[in-house]
């Protein structure tokens, strides 16, 4: 894992990851966001290059425009600023399930080479070493949004050859899996880590490293991956965060911290 120290750079690896995720979003996109890094990335995008992004929280708010980062998906300001507030039943049945939502964000405790995700248990299901929170909205977000952006820090503990539990399907066993499972969405089209960016190979659907963040080496990425990582021959380097991106991101994070103090 890349150290989260700033060192000679004026930003952390975590900030680079969030900025890279924000850049994937465009104005007008409808984004299903959870709390944490996805919400940070989506709100960063909204505050910078994608002011008309449509933020959708599974608590039922469509088109929320929070002034600060929500600390929970049920934050009151989400309801107050939303274009529409719907019940949770409606959110899942009328909005997520039909594939109306452009982008879903997912995190992962474990991810495999096909972008499948575990957020349920480490170890066996019946006698887990670590019991994680579970599925939440993730399995259906993974199945039904038009595309999925995964944000996850990269390490051999998270990038594993074999998931302990498949909570959310990425590209299944590769190739045509999603079509065979009847999913309409494209699944994870990008995995953004603190080291770089991975995208599924168009043919095999296996994640390949296509982009490295500044000052990260292929060796570091390989060492942080629990399988033999495929590196794209057109490997590019991420543009470092701009001053503006960093300033807005830090302001967003500071507002979150402030709201913990009431």
């Amino acid at each position: 894992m890349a150290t989260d120290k700033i060192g000679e750079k004026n930003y952390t690896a975590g900030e680079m990851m969030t900025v890279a995720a924000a850049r994937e979003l465009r104005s007008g996109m409808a984004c299903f966001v959870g709390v944490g890094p996805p919400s940070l990335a989506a709100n960063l995008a909204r505050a910078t290059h994608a002011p008309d992004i449509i933020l959708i929280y599974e608590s039922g708010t469509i088109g929320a425009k929070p002034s600060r980062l929500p600390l929970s998906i049920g934050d009151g300001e989400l309801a107050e600023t939303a274009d529409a507030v719907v019940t949770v039943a409606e959110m899942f049945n009328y909005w997520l399930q039909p594939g109306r939502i452009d982008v879903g964000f997912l995190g992962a405790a474990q991810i495999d080479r096909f972008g499948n995700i575990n957020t349920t248990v480490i170890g066996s299901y019946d006698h887990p070493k670590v019991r994680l929170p579970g599925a939440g909205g993730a399995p259906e977000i993974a199945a039904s949004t038009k595309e999925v952006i995964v944000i996850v820090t990269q390490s051999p503990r998270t990038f594993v050859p074999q998931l302990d539990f498949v909570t959310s399907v990425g590209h299944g066993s590769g190739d045509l899996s999603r079509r065979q499972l009847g999913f309409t969405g494209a699944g994870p089209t990008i995995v953004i880590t603190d080291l770089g960016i991975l995208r599924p190979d168009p043919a095999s659907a296996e994640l390949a490293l296509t982009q490295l963040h500044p000052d990260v080496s292929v060796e570091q990425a390989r060492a942080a991956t629990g399988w033999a990582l495929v590196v794209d021959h057109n490997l590019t380097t991420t543009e470092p965060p701009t001053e503006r991106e960093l300033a807005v991101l830090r302001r967003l994070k500071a507002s979150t911290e402030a709201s913990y103090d009431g």
Partner: protein
Amino acid sequence: MTAFLTLSAAIAEYVHDGDSVALEGFTHLIPFAAGHEVIRQGYRDLELIRMTPDLLYDQMIGMGCVRRLVFSYAGNPGVGSLHRFRDAVEHDWPNRIELEEHSHAGMVNRYVAGASNLPFAVMRGYTGTDLPKHTSTIASITCPFTGEVLTAVPALRPQVGIIHAQRADQAGNIQLWGITGVQKEVALAAHHTIVTVEEIVPRLEPLPGAVVIPGWVIAAVAEAPGGARPSYAHGYYDRDNGFYREWDLISRERARFATWMEENVLHASTAG
């Protein structure tokens, strides 16, 4: 028809050892006061149902009230783990709890089926995941018109549904607004529904985004001002975000948890 009861009387009347109980609230309007009253009255072997077991269920699990948990996401939202939940699952402390685990989409459709008096709901979900291997309440179902195979989940019909709302009027009609989550579905799916409210008012003023649940489907209304704290009641008070973070520390160790519960729940006076 609604009875106006104190919170302790309402819990005593409707909750029994071994019951299935859903205290719902999707981040907003979590019925903490009612849950604390369940803890104080010492019920055991409960089947707790909730999409998002959070601090309240962590407390109920840690206090040994729970035999079984039906859920879809057991985390401390925005903070991390629920340590009492983890301790129960990982180390059977204070007792083993059985899990029936779903996704949010599955849980909400199970409530919808319950509210609709249907034995099951149809959805797209769980396909390709490991959930059906461990959860027996996920089945496949074939569309009789197209032959397409979809997922079925059985209805949830809790014996007792407990929700918190902002207001009730004197006829027991309930009004809630802001994020209204799955509260109506739970109120209609449960055999008996208890609603705690911030206040009882002479008349429910219509408000944008407000949901009204007619009193004649509610078993009991109990006034419990602040009854959703440390979660929030839109228009009344904000979420105590600091406490959610503090809970991470309080709940990590069994002893500190026990002391905190002793001081803040067991020996606290009831709201009603």
